[in-house]
């Protein structure tokens, strides 16, 4: 089964515009985490949203979670060229080791 699937797979916008990326999952979660990956680099943690939360903000980032629809979205407002990266959602189902299950990611390109 597919877990943590993002859409769109690629998104190209102009600087200053907002970018919305979506993530769906199949089974229950303990929390859902969003990460950014610049080309060839490591994964940078952006936001963690717990299963009992509906919305969370961090600077220009806003994450929502709808557990009834098993989906989450990441909104980046007033995008900048430096936001160009791949964005991944990762599902944490709890258990004894809290491993993450990643989706395929959305490649965001912000054009100056």
């Amino acid at each position, binding site marked *: 089964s597919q877990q943590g699937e993002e859409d769109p797979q690629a998104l190209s916008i102009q600087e200053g515009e907002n970018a919305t990326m979506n993530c769906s999952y199949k089974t229950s979660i*303990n929390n859902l985490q969003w990460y950014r990956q610049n080309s060839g*680099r490591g994964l940078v*943690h952006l936001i*963690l949203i717990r299963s009992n939360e509906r919305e969370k903000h961090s600077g220009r980032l806003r994450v929502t979670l709808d557990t009834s629809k098993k989906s989450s979205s990441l909104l980046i407002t007033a995008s900048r060229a430096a936001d160009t990266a791949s964005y991944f959602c990762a599902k944490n189902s709890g258990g*004894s080791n809290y491993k993450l299950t*990643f989706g395929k990611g959305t490649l965001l390109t912000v054009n100056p």
Partner: protein
Amino acid sequence: EPEVTQTPSHQVTQMGQEVILRCVPISNHLYFYWYRQILGQKVEFLVSFYNNEISEKSEIFDDQFSVERPDGSNFTLKIRSTKLEDSAMYFCASRGTTLYSNQPQHFGDGTRLSIL
């Protein structure tokens, strides 16, 4: 801000050779992980490590793989006899200063492993 460090950044190895990838997790973290990302594919979980033992491993983590935390600071991934399909970016991660579950994992920059 504390970070996870990985060495080397790039490792080129002949097929069949042993390779050791090294990681220094964040010092007071309790849980340690290895993930891999084959080019163009998802990040996949390999293994988790807690309290000096493996707590979970994926199907990918077969007998050719092993992990160690030899000295309380380093966390290593060893592949005994590498195959072409082991070529990937390998990420180390750590989390958790307590048993509280809602803490993020912090990743290193990865080691790009190329098997020739």
